[in-house]
Each structure stands twice: as C-alpha cells, then as structure tokens.
C-alpha cells in the first residue's frame, strides 16, 4: 500500500456525507481511488426511489448514505385531518405490496383504542387474508431479489403464482393490491361463496411451486456465491438497530410478534418460527421461503376452522375513541409494523404515528454493506425487502 495522500478527501462534499467521514479509513486499498457514486433514485435495483450515495474504493464500499423521502406523502399529517374511518384506505398505500397487513395493524390499533374486538369469524378471515398477503409479498420479494442478482426466471414464476393470490383478493374485496379489506371492528365483506374452496385450491396449487422456486435457487451455485456471507448482520446488531422481521430471524433470534404477543387469532394456530444462523443473505432467503410454508400451514388451519358468526363487532357508526394513547404492532411481512395513536376524544386522530419496518430496517444497510463490493449492495438492498412507499410514507 502506498503512503496515504489524503488530498482527495477534501473534495468530498462535506454536507451530504458528514455521516461517512466519521469512519473513513486512513488507508485505502488502492491509492487515490476513492469515488463517490450516486445509486438511484432512478435505478431498477433500488426497488423504488431510493438514492444511495456510495463511497467506494475501487469496487469496495467504504460507506453509504441513504437519501430518502422522494415518495413522502405526509401520511401522518393526512391522518390528523381525516376521521378514523376515512384514513383506513390510506394505510394500504404505505407498504403497497402488503396492503392487507397494513390494514390489519391499523384496524386493530383503533379497535384497541376503542376497547372493542373483532368477532372470531372476522379474525379468521383477517388471518387468512393477511397470510395470503405475506405469501404474495414474499413472492414479489423473491422475484425481484433474484432478478437483481441475475436470475431472471424466478420473477416469471413468482409473478405467475402471485396472480392467484391477487385473484382471491379481487374476488373478496374487488381490489388486487390496495385492498382496504378490513374495517374498524371487523370486516365489511362476508366471504364470497367458494372462498374456502379457492383458498384450498391455492394451497394445493402453491405447495409444489415453492419447491419449484427452491429447485431454481437453493442449491444453485451462482445463487450461493452471490448470497452466502453477503450482508452479514449479527443478532446483537439487529437488536441495536431495531431490525425486525425475517432479517432478525435469519440472524438467529426466534422472535415473531405472532407468537411473542399474539394478535388477531394467531394464538389458535400451530406454526413455527423459522430462523437462520449466519444472518447472511442466503439465510434470509431460506427464512422467507420457510415463512411461506408456515403461512400456508396457518391458512390451512384457519380455512378448516373458520367459525360461523357475525363479521362486524359492536362499533359505533361514528368512531370516537376515548381520550388516550395506544401503541399496537403486528408482524408484517417486513417486520414489526406499529401504530401509535393519540386520541383527543374527537373523530380524528390527534396524532397518528406509523412505525414502519422498512424505514428502520433500511438503516442497517450501511452496516451490512461496508467492505463488500458494489454488486453486493444490490443483493443487500434486495434482501432488506424494503418498500419505499413505507420508508417515506
């Protein structure tokens, strides 16, 4: 290594990279080869409008900084100017790949504030749709993630099969993506005739499809090279950075809100929490694949045990929760999705805060890619499974 002449450092734009300067190594692998590159916001592998400023030494990443907010719509401010009911469809637009989960979290949070509970039948319907949505979300993740890394085929497979989930949503509530499936207090729609049959048909259809995905990737040598030991994050770092969801589980922490603090009807079902060991991209892939299988298990139990009864609880026409504040969170496909609502006794939330899993998980990107190659940044962004609609809100 030649003597470090750090003259070029002065050219680093100070303001935007103040974060990175803290940990700039004083020696680089190649002399004077530091480079600042903008990745995004218009970049197919950033899954939306994410801009990552990369500080590189040749191809090696010295540090990153995320610039976000391109998709900021001020959801929390909107909430303060809408009634509880009117705000419900807005939550679908945050994580638009898992709209049903967002709706479930919001409805349950308001129900908690109202101190009412959805009737059992509604809770089963909620679980079925939410788990279907988890599958759809993971399918979308798998397809795009594999595409980023260079495997094109999984994208077509997953999108073909995801269509079947979306068809069920469409038959149930008329929408495919931004479903607005649930209402505060229960569900608006009774299941259509043939709903159970559709769901069971999907399960039998989908079980061999996961094997198909796995046949393409799990032992694929290129896939292994690109994902093993890439973007490693330890359990301790995950906890310190607030990283949740499959990322946390892939690092070996057996924690899932559906088990830890059960909501909806999850306590009634038998399922496992898949975990990984190494906390690398490959383990996260395996964890998500296993999660899809577990989701199928849950759906199967829920469809077979779906009780009869009403689908709406006793909620007043005008929703006016008593003064108070509540935090409620659910295990969304991407991690802990929380709602913190402050009510002042009126029909509109006084303050509504969304705790988005993608936003918090994205913060770990810098730690995960330091020292890796540029190509690995793509893999790590993919494995984080972020949705910019939720990061920016």
């Amino acid at each position, binding site marked *: 290594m030649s003597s470090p002449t750090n003259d070029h450092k002065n050219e680093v734009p100070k303001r935007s990279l103040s974060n990175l300067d803290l940990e700039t190594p004083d020696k680089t692998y190649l002399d004077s080869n530091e480079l600042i590159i903008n990745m995004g916001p218009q970049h197919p592998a950033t899954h939306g409008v994410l801009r990552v400023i990369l500080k590189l030494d040749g191809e090696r990443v010295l540090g990153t900084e995320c610039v*976000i*907010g391109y998709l900021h719509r001020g959801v929390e401010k909107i909430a303060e100017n809408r009634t509880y009911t009117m705000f419900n469809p807005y939550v679908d637009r945050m994580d638009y790949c898992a709209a049903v989960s967002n709706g479930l979290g919001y409805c349950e949070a308001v129900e908690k504030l109202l101190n009412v509970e959805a009737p059992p039948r509604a809770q089963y319907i909620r679980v079925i749709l939410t788990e279907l949505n988890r599958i759809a979300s993971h399918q979308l993740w798998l397809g795009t993630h594999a595409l980023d890394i260079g495997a094109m085929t999984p994208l077509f497979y997953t999108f073909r099969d995801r269509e079947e989930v979306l068809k069920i949503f469409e038959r149930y509530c008329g929408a495919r993506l931004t479903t607005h499936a649930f209402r505060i207090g229960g569900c608006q729609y009774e299941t259509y005739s043939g709903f159970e049959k559709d769901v069971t048909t999907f399960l039998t259809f989908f079980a061999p499809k996961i094997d198909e995905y796995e046949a393409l990737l799990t032992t694929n040598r290129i896939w292994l090279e690109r994902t093993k030991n890439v973007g490693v994050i330890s359990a301790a770092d995950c906890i310190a*950075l607030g990283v949740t969801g499959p990322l946390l589980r892939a690092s070996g922490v057996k924690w899932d809100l559906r088990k830890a603090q059960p909501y909806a009807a999850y306590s009634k079902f038998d399922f496992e929490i898949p975990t990984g060991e190494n906390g690398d991209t490959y383990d996260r892939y395996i964890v998500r694949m296993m999660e899809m299988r577990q989701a199928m298990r849950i759906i199967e139990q829920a469809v077979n045990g779906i009780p009869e009864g009403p689908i709406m609880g006793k909620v007043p026409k005008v929703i006016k929760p008593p*003064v*108070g504040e509540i935090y409620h969170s659910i295990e969304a496909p991407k991690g802990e999705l929380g709602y*913190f609502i*402050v009510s*002042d006794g009126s029909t509109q939330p006084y*303050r509504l805060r969304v705790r988005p899993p993608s936003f918090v998980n994205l913060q770990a990107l810098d730690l995960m890619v330091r020292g890796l190659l540029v190509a690995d940044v793509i893999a790590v962004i993919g494995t984080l499974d972020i949705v910019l609609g939720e990061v920016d809100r």
Partner: protein
Amino acid sequence: MAEEIKSPAPPPPPEGEKKPAAEKPAAAAPTAPAKPAAPAAKPAAPAKPAGPVPMPWTSPLVEKYKSQYGSGLDALTYLGQNYFNVDRSLIPDILRLLRDEEQFDYCVDLTAAHYPKREKQFDVVWILYSFPRNQRMRVKTQIADGATLPSSVSIWPTANWLEREVYDMFGIQFDGHPDLKRILLPDGWKGFPLRKDYDILQQDKEWVQINLGIESGQ
C-alpha cells in the same frame, strides 16, 4: 429549558390540556374485556364515565425507579399498556438505566406529539421493548418549544434515523446526535409539518405562488 415548572403530580397529568374534552365518548365503552391484563374498568371517575383512564402502574420495576426519582417520574398504565411519564431532566439517565438494568434492549420507535396550547408544547415518546421480558413500555416526557433533548443514539443506534425524523417533522433538537438533519423532507423545506400550527395547504400555496406566479385556488 422550562424544567422549573414541575407540575406537582395531579394523578393523571399526562395530557393536561386534553382532559376537558373527555366527556362525550361514552358510547365507545368497552364491550369485551379481551385485553391481556385489562385495567380494572372504570374507577371512581368524576361522574361521567369517559372511557378508561390511565391508572397507576405498579410493579417491582416501578417501585425501584419511583424510590430513586420520586416526583420526577409517574408510572401509569392505560388499556394494559404501561408507560413512564418523566421529567425532562431525567431523560438520558432513565433511558440508559432501562436498557442496561431492565433489559429494554430494543427501541421500537421514537416520536412526538404537538400540543400548541400547552406551555411545554411537545410530548416526546420512546416506545421500548424488551426481548428477555417480552414486555413493552413507553417513556414519555414533555418539553417546551425550542428546548432540546439529549440524543439517545449512544443508547440505541436505531434512534439515529428516528431522531432525525422527529427533528424533521417537529423541529425538536437532539443534542449529541451525530448528524441531525432533515430525513424525509428536502433540505430547503420551511417549517415542521407535524406541528399543529402547520397548515396542510401552506407549502402548496407558496409553491404555486413562487412557481406559477398566481394565487393558489385551494
């Protein structure tokens, strides 16, 4: 820093100015007490049952910190969710203790709420979770406009972006934050949108005026 006005602990002091509006929503009374460890329904509240009210939270953890900090700390529970309402001056210490001694190792969220009519305008809330205990709690404090809070990035690194967002939306400064700047909004943004006195059309009107040279029709 307006710490001198330490409200001498009226039992439920968290939202001093919100209380008067609490009469009406009796319709939304509880139907099913399905909450784990639901608070013992309506206590002897003054006449009108205005839904559940925050109750004192009792546990060994609370005893410990109560005896240590006395009147600067209020431990309450609402609908089965526990929180500390603490004085601003205790903030770095109590958070650090909760992580180190009580294993609240995961800072779930950090956020704020604005009450423009209050003297201490902002509620700042830390939502914490403990993996070993499988418990949640919140820490809440009140600060005045222009007052600062010590950063908790050294306690939970995740607070980095969360504090930036609170700064971005409310303009609350965190001392000792490594890089406190706007996160979701562009650098040139004026004002702090989640403050109550920030009109939702304000930015829009200004943009139209500057860029189109006409009055906004909104």
